[in-house]
């Protein structure tokens, strides 16, 4: 299987609410010579994993997408299904994990799908963009065009890429995968205590105050540690963080952006970076920006 080939599962939010995340990600993939192809068809993963043991039907959307990936993957010589959104990652990988470990559930699901002449052979590997970038750190190093002097980045993982630990991409209590990527990018990062703290997730819809409080704590923590950039990989975290930021009376001078926006900028791939972010980065990088 070709190591550079990936199928891509976009999910609802990236397509609708985080366009620049997706676009800059693809710019970065191209620069790293990765062949990433969007699934011809995909189904909403449901965004949260149904936890109850009798809730099999909630996994159907995810299974359909996994089957689609299995079929398309054969033609493309890959079994890797990449996601940008960590919530999609979390659901798809957990469903995959569950089916692999629980033959009874698998049989149950198969019964649903039999009428449609579908079957799933458990061959797909669900991967998150962070894992892929980590794997190609050498290429990242070579692709960097701008020096990140003046930037101090706070990595923000949130929960979904890391928990539960059976499917997490790194140690849920002290992940370092983003830090490694920053090192390859040549930007300075800060240590602060809230990089895996929950942003409030969907609770923002139920108890807005709580979500704002959580996200504010993260922003302030990052700022106090000296960061001027707070980097996320999740559209929902991004939303909650922005919600909190916008509700602050004294807004700290820190910008909340997607990891791939920062990467694209440092790689000199400016075309899809939102103008406000571009000018923020420009102003911090100062005159020594262009690599000599």
């Amino acid at each position, binding site marked *: 299987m070709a190591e550079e080939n990936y199928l891509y599962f976009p999910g609802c939010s990236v397509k609708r609410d985080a366009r620049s995340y997706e676009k800059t990600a693809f710019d970065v993939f191209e620069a790293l010579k990765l062949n990433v192809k969007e699934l011809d068809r995909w189904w909403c993963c449901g965004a949260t994993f149904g936890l109850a043991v009798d809730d099999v039907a909630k996994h159907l959307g995810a299974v359909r997408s996994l089957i689609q990936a299995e079929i398309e993957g054969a033609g493309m010589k890959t079994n890797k299904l990449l996601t940008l959104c960590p919530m999609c990652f979390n659901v798809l990988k957990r469903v995959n994990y569950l089916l692999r470990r629980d033959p009874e559930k698998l049989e149950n699901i198969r019964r649903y799908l039999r009428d449609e002449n579908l079957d799933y052979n458990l061959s797909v590997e669900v991967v998150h963009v962070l894992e892929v970038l980590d794997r190609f750190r050498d290429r990242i190093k070579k692709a960097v065009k701008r020096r990140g002097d003046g930037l101090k980045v706070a990595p923000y993982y949130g929960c979904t890429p890391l928990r539960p630990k059976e499917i997490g991409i790194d*140690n849920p*209590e*002290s992940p370092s995968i983003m830090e490694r990527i920053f090192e390859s990018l040549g930007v300075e990062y800060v240590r602060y*205590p809230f990089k895996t703290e929950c942003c409030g997730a969907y609770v923002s819809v139920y108890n807005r105050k709580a979500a704002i409080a959580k996200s504010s704590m993260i922003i302030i923590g990052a700022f*106090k*540690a000296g960061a001027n950039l707070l980097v996320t990989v999740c559209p929902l975290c991004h939303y909650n963080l922005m919600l909190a930021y916008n509700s602050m009376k004294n807004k700290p001078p820190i910008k909340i952006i997607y990891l791939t926006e920062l990467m694209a900028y440092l790689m000199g791939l400016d075309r899809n970076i939102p103008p406000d972010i571009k000018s923020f980065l420009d102003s911090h990088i100062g005159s020594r920006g262009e690599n000599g």
Partner: protein
Amino acid sequence: MLDGIDYSEPRIGVFVCHCGTNIAAVVDVKKVVEEAKKLPGVVHAEDYMYMCSGIGQQLIINAIREKKLNGVVVAACTPSLHYETFARAVESAGLSRQRYKIVSIREYCSWVHFHDRKRATEKAIRIVAAAVAEIRDNKVYEPIRRKVIKKALVIGGGIAGMTAALDLANAGIPVILVEKEPTIGGKMIQLSVTFPTLDCAQCTITPRMAEVGKHPNIKLYTLSEVIDVSGHIGNFHVKIRKKPRMVDPEECRLCGWCANACPVEVINEFTRGLSKRKAIYLPFPQAVPASFVIDEEHCTRCGMCVKVCPVNAINLDEKEEIIEEDVGAIILATGYDLYDGRKLPEYGYGIYKNVIDSLQFEQLIVPSGPTKGRIVRISDGKPAKRVVFIQCAGQRDVNHLPYCSKICCMYVAKEALMFKSKVPDGEAYIFYIDVRTAGKGYEEFYKKVQEIPGVKYIRGRVGKVWEDENGDLIVTGIDTLTGETVKIRADLVVLALGMIPNLDKRLVEKLKISTDEYGFAQEVHPKLKPVETEIGGVYIAGAVQGPKDISESVAQASAAASKALQLLTKDEIEKEPLIAEVDRERCDGCGLCVATCPYSAIKLEDGYARVDEIACEGCGMCVPSCPTGAINLRNMTNKQIHEIIKAVYGVR
């Protein structure tokens, strides 16, 4: 062979017991006697009301003499009850106990089949028939004897190992003590004071170390490890690898000039990284042997030390040595380690300097320690005023150590007390799930610590520890008794890490002992044989068997020494001769049995299998593995099993 008994033809007597009505009310005893008389080889059968009574025994003795019996079957209760009773009776009549068998028609028959007299009787007859068939072919073997080497090996020189070594040495047994570090002392020498009496650990242990060092019966090998063990109970052959010390302990005057001259500085493991030492160093002032040592790994062989040593004690070319010894018994006392705190990154161990483990905190308390007994923040050396202790830091947690480490509740109480005695205006917060104080004086000790103002026990857990922008530690947790979250700004956070066994796999394999699911050495029986291992002659002591405090380690060490003494005071050991035996006529040397034996008791010699009489435990596992039927268990041979089956089904 005993005199006066003719074994040429089977002459078996069967004795059926009524046990009052216990048997006779269900089993038709008379019928059993009648049927027994018809069995091949049986020349006598009778029944009696209470066979185990004096009269009953006399019946058997008389019958042996009068009827010239050469085999006895007693059909009564179980062997665990009366095997010995009748064995003695049989022997007093001059018959070997190997020609006697007791079978149960009570527990195995009348007591469980009281609902069906007819078939209970039929079954009793089959049971008797099987026993007769078995005994018919029993041979009389000489007991197996083997010389015992009156010398012991103790592995590990902590408090447990030293205690066992001294107990044995004082009883006159020469002891070889192997310690892998440059000095004996183990973990106890790193402690400050000890609960519940608060006596100084070093003052307690150093006289013992000195005694070990100069005891005429103890040969001490430091920087050494056991690399091979062969042989068996009473007669082990061990190989010991002794790493070079490169300083002659006989010559070294402890002047320390060498260390001053040495340019290489590394972290000091004795203080658990709280200080530095040179590549040539004295582990600590009371080390035994009292000598400097060169850290082979870090020494650059620059030769500076050699130049300054006034007595030429240093030899940089010293090589490792392999030493071989023969011993009769082995005591394993390799102790424990602490769980790796880095597996708890949520508490910041290995990330923030001021998050330390409990042994590091002990080092902060000891007056001779790296801070001279001052309790300070490791990051900046400022006095530590507020200390948070986290109990069960990984213990009782299925994600880390599922077991309770037993001593940490107590050492935290002690450390909090010591902290308060040194920093009277300090505050100690102790997060706990339960406080376990099962020991003499322990609950009282806990109560005493609770009484100290400024010591606060918080029933609950810490979720996370982090460092804020001022370099202070922030501890967030929950007080389950109030249901409120707590947030404490602390100078030091001490993790009460649990004990894990210090027992490497290779040593386990060489000793052929087993370990429990966590890697602690496995005792044979937790209640009745707590210091014995499955391997005869190998005993365990101290924390290598499971979490233990010092008193328990010492008690167990003395127990292990006493068990070893029971063995080593004998000139030879005798065991039942019921072991496997190879028929050379049939053995074709395929070696299948060799691989099957769990005790490595079989060797191939000149193309035949040979069973080591001492090592064989008589399990019989080798028997089915032999394709030619050459290997058999004495007095339970394949032929006998066949005869037993035949007898069971030969009854009508």
